[in-house]
């Protein structure tokens, strides 16, 4: 592990004000992302899972600076986006321009069709990023063709085609090539394989893993498909209502999750083994309204182990052991939760 992590996210906050019409002000605020902090090391894949509306995609857009955060910081290699003398870490080389960020971090979207301009050939689409960054046309075009080859599409056959002439899997390969055209270090995959057929999905996943090895990439892999996340991730981050509830190595999360929400999610995973069939719905009810989240622990309204302390105090994301952090009173000895007392006694 190098001295400075590739990506550091600190206390990121994004609120979306609700529009109450012209004459109503302050209708309410949705806390889409509420104090999210995590670190991504170079070369790893961080999986982000959670229900719809838990803030996964908002986090991705905040990282890409496609939307402005209300609070918090994003540091890439210890440098923050901003003017060169901005708040940077120690003796690091100063702030990161937005253009430098774009070259360091790229994103692949879920909808393979909507994320390609229907009027541009796929070669033009891929070459667009390098062209914007001042690469001469000939060179950008050569790079686009090279990348098409890398994602498994023969440039002689595909370079001049339009998006509607491609299948979903082929289009997503083009989107991956487009993201790689700026030679980024980090690629955010926002549900990038979720819309594909299972067989195509497997091919694209394997392509992603090959590309990661070839280019030395770091992935942030956002998905609601727990099987896929388990397959590709080194570490997994579980989000619930805009907060991280648990983060840790993939083996630890999938084998021995500490947060009841993570356990509920995992028990909802479809399985091939009839002996481990999911019989009862693991979670009851809908997620609470994010405009008015519950006090204390946000999961307590659906948690089978909720106690008084859960409503009174919000559990902090605290390390239980190396690299594994949980936001649950049950996992924190001395929190006042009955199960935490048992934990302390056992230890």
């Amino acid at each position, binding site marked *: 592990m190098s001295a400075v992590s590739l990506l550091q996210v600190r206390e990121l906050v994004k609120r979306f004000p609700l529009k109450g019409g012209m004459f109503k002000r302050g209708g309410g605020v949705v806390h889409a992302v509420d104090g999210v902090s995590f670190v991504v090391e170079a070369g790893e894949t961080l999986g982000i899972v959670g229900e719809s509306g838990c803030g996964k995609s908002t986090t991705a857009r905040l990282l890409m600076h496609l939307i402005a955060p209300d609070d918090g910081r994003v540091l890439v290699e210890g440098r923050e986006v901003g003017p060169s003398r901005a708040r940077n870490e120690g003796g690091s080389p100063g702030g990161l321009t937005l253009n430098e960020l774009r070259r360091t971090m790229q994103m692949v979207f879920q909808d393979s069709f909507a994320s390609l301009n229907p009027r541009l050939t796929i070669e033009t689409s891929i070459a667009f*990023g390098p062209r914007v960054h001042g690469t001469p046309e000939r060179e950008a075009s050569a790079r686009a063709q090279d990348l098409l080859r890398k994602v498994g599409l023969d440039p002689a056959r595909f*370079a001049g085609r339009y998006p509607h*002439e491609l299948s979903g899997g082929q289009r997503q390969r083009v989107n991956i090539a487009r993201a790689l055209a700026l030679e980024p270090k980090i690629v955010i995959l926002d549900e990038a394989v979720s819309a594909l057929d299972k067989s195509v999905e497997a091919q694209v996943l394997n392509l992603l893993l090959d590309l990661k090895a070839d280019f030395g990439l770091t992935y942030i892999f956002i998905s609601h498909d727990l099987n896929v996340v388990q397959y590709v991730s080194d570490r997994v981050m579980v989000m619930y209502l805009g907060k991280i509830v648990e983060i840790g190595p993939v083996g630890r999360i999938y084998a021995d999750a500490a947060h009841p929400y993570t356990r509920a999610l995992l028990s909802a995973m479809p399985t091939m083994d009839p002996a481990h069939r999911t019989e009862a719905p693991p979670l009851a009810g809908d997620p609470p309204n994010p405009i008015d989240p519950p006090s204390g622990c946000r999961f307590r309204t659906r948690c089978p182990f909720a106690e008084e302390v859960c409503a009174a105090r919000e559990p902090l994301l605290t390390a239980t052991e190396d690299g594994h952090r949980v936001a649950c009173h049950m996992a924190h000895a001395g929190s006042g939760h009955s199960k935490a007392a048992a934990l302390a006694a056992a230890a």
Partner: protein
Amino acid sequence: MSAVTINGGGTPVDAPARTQGYWTGVGRRLRRDKVALACALVLLAIVLAAVFAPFVAPDDPTKGSILKRLMPIGTPGHLLGTDELGRDMLSRLIFGGRLSLTMGISPVFFALMLGSLLGIVAGFVGGRANTAIMRTVDVFFAFPSVLLAVAISGALGAGIANAMLALTIVFVPPLARVAESVTTQVRSLDYVEAARASGAGGWTIIRVHILGNVLGPIFVYATSLVSVSMILAAGLSFLGLGTKPPDPEWGLMLNTLRTAIYTQPWVAALPGVMIFFVSISFNLLSDGLRSAMDVQR
């Protein structure tokens, strides 16, 4: 952009290496549309006749003869008869196309420029800029278009230039509204987001990603406005706010011939027939264009 066409003797499933460009496809689909093709030919004929009027027209459109007033259609020497001052109708209709087509097309063209600019900027920037532009445009929507055209051109004074200015002002709001709604729609698509993520500036995104996907629908709408513009221009001339006699213009000709509606109804209706043909051709052509530009087929 230099894909080499090598098809490697692939299976029949293999599509050709270099598929045709977007506009080539539009042209091909348009040519397959019989109605649109016929309309295009009619318009082409009328436009060519108007452009080359001095060579095509059999007679001087302003030279009258008091002896040959209101001759019926089919009179020898005057194929379509003569008007109330004995001028050759065919020649006047051919020459009239010059002014009428100009009055029909140029206001829409200028409004297309201005309206698209306003609408695209409003749609792309959004927020307060959108509200400011679109609410201002809405003010003009409050008036019926005929009334607005008459009011503006009346205030500015009669004349072709003023009539065209008035018509341009009338057509800016609807075009701006269409441009704004299409742009808003396109702006929210992922490929615009992806373009922003690759670091492109606002103008680059508008130029490369917005314009290409927005101008099509706006252009189709504009072609349908050409017929409206022709009819409004004819109306202004009819009211004496556009062309001045003796210049031939279809709307003005309708006006001056209205006294002859009982004596020579067919001759009096001829300018209206021309307006009808041109405007229906523009409408059907824009319909054909709309379906030809639908990429997903």
